[in-house]
């Protein structure tokens, strides 16, 4: 579904998009298709990361989904406990198949930090 949309985007404005996307993709195959041939080339886009992290936070039972924005702080804005923060970080680890070291995981306190960490991690998928 995402591939189809990406393909349609390419076919509509080929010249302009290639210049922008060239920095993201390491190789642009035939017909400007977006398929990457190695599992390490396709990093998640920021919007994907934001959407998935917000989904994880919204499906937490103690959280009111209407209040969740990409800059929300778990303890100050959502009124969660520090143990709840630990649970959310674990859920994010499971969602993106990451392994976050304990010291780093302790520092993740808000949605923006979580999104930044996941986006900058080379192995998030």
């Amino acid at each position, binding site marked *: 579904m995402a591939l189809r949309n990406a393909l349609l985007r390419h076919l509509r404005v080929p010249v302009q998009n290639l210049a922008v996307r060239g920095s993201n993709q390491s190789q642009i195959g035939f017909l400007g298709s977006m398929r990457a041939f190695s599992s390490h080339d396709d990093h998640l886009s920021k919007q994907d990361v934001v959407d998935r992290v917000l989904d994880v936070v919204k499906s937490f039972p103690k959280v009111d989904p209407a209040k969740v924005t990409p800059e929300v702080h778990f303890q100050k804005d959502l009124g969660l406990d*520090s*143990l709840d*923060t*630990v649970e959310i*970080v*674990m859920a994010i680890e499971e969602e993106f*198949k990451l*392994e976050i070291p*304990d010291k780093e995981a*302790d520092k993740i306190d808000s949605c923006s930090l979580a999104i930044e960490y996941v986006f900058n991690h080379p192995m998030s998928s």
Partner: protein
Amino acid sequence: MSGVSSAAYFARRAAQKEKVRILYRRALKDTLNWAVHRHIFYRDASDLREKFNANQDVEDVDRIDKLIAHGEAEYDKWRHPDPYIVPWAPGGSKFCRNPTPPAGIEIVYNYGQEDNP
């Protein structure tokens, strides 16, 4: 004098809180290792959370230290012998598999056939 001691007190409390958070995180991962099926995991995870919540209002610093030591001993007792570790992380199955080759090495694809391309 009291300023110094209260700063030390707060530093000690903050260190304890961090220890509690790390202990809770490890205990939760361990619970997931033991209880693989999600519905069992949720039940055990809420039991663990109740145990932590029961002691959350303790103010005496020494008592908190003893509780943390007790909790860590319990965690050591229940550690899983074969925990799930994400494959590319240290301890996982893909760790150090296929490391990037050192710079300067390249593959010659037509070795021995340079004369007739």
